[in-house]
């Protein structure tokens, strides 16, 4: 008997699944957790802890923001800077300065590139941002929330949480659809996480130029990757989110090479309409 729930949070559709009956309490707890984490990690509410950190530059923070920033900084090191939480000003400079629902599809606003990779220091429970550094934890925050929610639901039974494409699996066996150039491919997940990054959804136009939210920290501008979309399976949803972004920015050749080297299953859809499987997936 499978129970499920759908709701909106973190600017996307959230789906909770549990392979158990009478799991309302666990599903309620998971839903509350999403809203709680959204209130902490969003950059779109001035009262969120993240917004206060970005504003005040140095702040004693709660355990969730501290953990997500720690994970993001670790990921920055592991991905040689291709994943970087300091892209906030670059994303805003590219035009993504409000929730995606409120974002005008077309405008003549000036697009500004920003340098990324500034210093972020963690000292106990205090986070200190370097000059002109602000954090955007949108993607990794969703992965983190998916993991926390899946953990709560798994008390009732095997669980899957889908936070707008960032999927966390805690127990059970779950067929998950992945969109390819030729149609939908189904992957069976028995644990870990899965995430997709691409420029086929969160995109907009400024002065006739198409832009998207995947910033290459090396240039501070939307990545000119030769990929349209990339899906990664990893040890958890946070790891999958990190590598989906990093490999997307790396581009097709490097992404395939690195996925194979790391044994990280990947589905790549190229900008010219081809589908490639990598990282041991066949």
């Amino acid at each position, binding site marked *: 008997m*499978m129970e499920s729930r759908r709701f909106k949070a973190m600017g*996307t559709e959230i*789906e909770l*699944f549990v392979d158990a009956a009478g799991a309302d309490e666990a599903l309620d707890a998971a839903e509350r957790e999403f809203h709680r984490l959204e209130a902490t990690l969003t950059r779109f509410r001035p009262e969120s802890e993240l917004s206060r950190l970005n504003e005040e530059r140095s702040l004693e923070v709660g355990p969730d923001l501290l953990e997500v920033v720690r994970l993001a900084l670790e990921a920055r090191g592991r991905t040689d800077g291709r994943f970087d939480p300091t892209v906030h000003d670059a994303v805003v400079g590219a035009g993504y300065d409000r929730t995606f629902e409120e974002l005008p599809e077309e405008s003549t606003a000036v697009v500004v590139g920003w340098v990324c990779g500034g210093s972020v220091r963690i000292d106990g429970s205090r986070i200190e941002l370097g000059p002109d550094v602000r954090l955007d934890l949108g*993607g990794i925050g*969703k992965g983190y929330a998916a993991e926390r929610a899946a953990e709560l639901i798994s008390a009732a039974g095997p669980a*899957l949480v*889908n*936070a*707008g*494409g*960032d*999927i966390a*699996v805690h127990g059970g066996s*779950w*067929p*998950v*659809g*992945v*969109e390819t150039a030729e149609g*939908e*491919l*189904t*992957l*069976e*997940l*028995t*644990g*870990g996480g*899965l*995430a*997709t*990054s*691409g*420029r*086929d*959804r*969160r995109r907009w136009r400024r002065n006739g130029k198409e832009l998207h939210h995947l910033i290459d920290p090396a240039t501070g501008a939307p990545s000119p990757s030769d990929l349209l*979309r990339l*899906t990664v*399976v*990893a*040890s958890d949803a946070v*790891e999958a*989110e990190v590598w*989906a972004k990093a490999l997307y920015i790396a581009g097709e050749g490097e992404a395939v090479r690195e996925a194979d080297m*790391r*044994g*990280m*299953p990947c589905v790549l859809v190229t900008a010219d309409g081809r589908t490639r499987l990598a*990282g041991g*997936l*066949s």
Partner: protein
Amino acid sequence: MTNQVGRLYSVALGLFVFFLTWVAIGARPWVASGSQSDPRLAALEKREQRVRRQSVVVQRLVNRRWATYRAQLRQRQSQIAAASQAQAAAAQAPPVRVVSLPPVTSTRTS
């Protein structure tokens, strides 16, 4: 004959006096007595001995610190190796395969 013996004694005495003088001059007694009496040289010697003692102390300190550093380095290296192994294990993707079942849910660009 007497004159010859006398000459021989004179030559022998001359040689004896010559070697005695040589030995006396070769010993250079004025140098030793002079250096002992120069206070600047004495101070220099004292200073040399003090510096030698200090260098021995510093060398011991350096050796002790080097040993501590090596021990800490070994400990840190083993911690890094353990963390790397843990990270590699954690980063290990779970088994996944392509199936022909209908999906429960789908991923899309987040």
